[in-house]
């Protein structure tokens, strides 16, 4: 893992140098290049995220938390990762409006996914109240 971060930082610095060279003359090629760099770095750290997710999964099994809640949280994490990626690419290209819309869409989708959890909390509160 420590070796991995050295590799990623070196990669990112090299890519940034190329991006600075390209951004002034050909902004659209710089956009594609930054897309590739972002996808590459995310792909490189996904196995580590997978380890954390596996750990959380075993913890959920041991604690006997209902699996649907954990599944929802995982889905929300995935939506957040993808939306952040897309929004950052859009913001990088100067399209802040598109970036804001992507974030809004992600928030709405996350809210929809979280509805069963909110329902469960409300049920619990109603049951606790006399």
């Amino acid at each position: 893992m420590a070796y991995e971060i050295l590799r990623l930082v070196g990669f990112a610095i090299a890519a940034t140098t190329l991006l600075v060279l390209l951004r002034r003359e050909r902004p659209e090629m710089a956009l594609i290049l930054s897309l590739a760099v972002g996808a590459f770095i995310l792909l490189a750290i996904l196995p580590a995220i997978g380890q954390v997710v596996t750990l959380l999964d075993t913890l959920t099994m041991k604690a006997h938390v209902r699996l649907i809640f954990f599944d929802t949280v995982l889905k929300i994490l995935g939506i957040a990762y993808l939306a952040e990626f897309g929004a950052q690419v859009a913001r990088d290209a100067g399209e802040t409006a598109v970036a804001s819309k992507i974030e809004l869409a992600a928030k709405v989708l996350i809210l929809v996914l979280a509805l069963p959890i909110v329902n469960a909390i409300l049920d619990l509160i109603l049951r606790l109240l006399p």
Partner: protein
Amino acid sequence: MLSFDVVIKLAALGILVMLARLVLESIGDRKEYGLLLTIAGVVVGFLVVIPLLTNLIQSVKTLFNL
């Protein structure tokens, strides 16, 4: 781990398009060829980057059960 060569490829493509446009502009006013060249460069770049994006989205989908 994935390899660095996609990024090298894209940077080389960008620099190539940049140089070709500079040459075209220095030959004469061939603005329309420059535009075509830029579009071709963008299309080729997307052809390179789309497999990477598909890979990323598939990985996130399988990891987070989307």
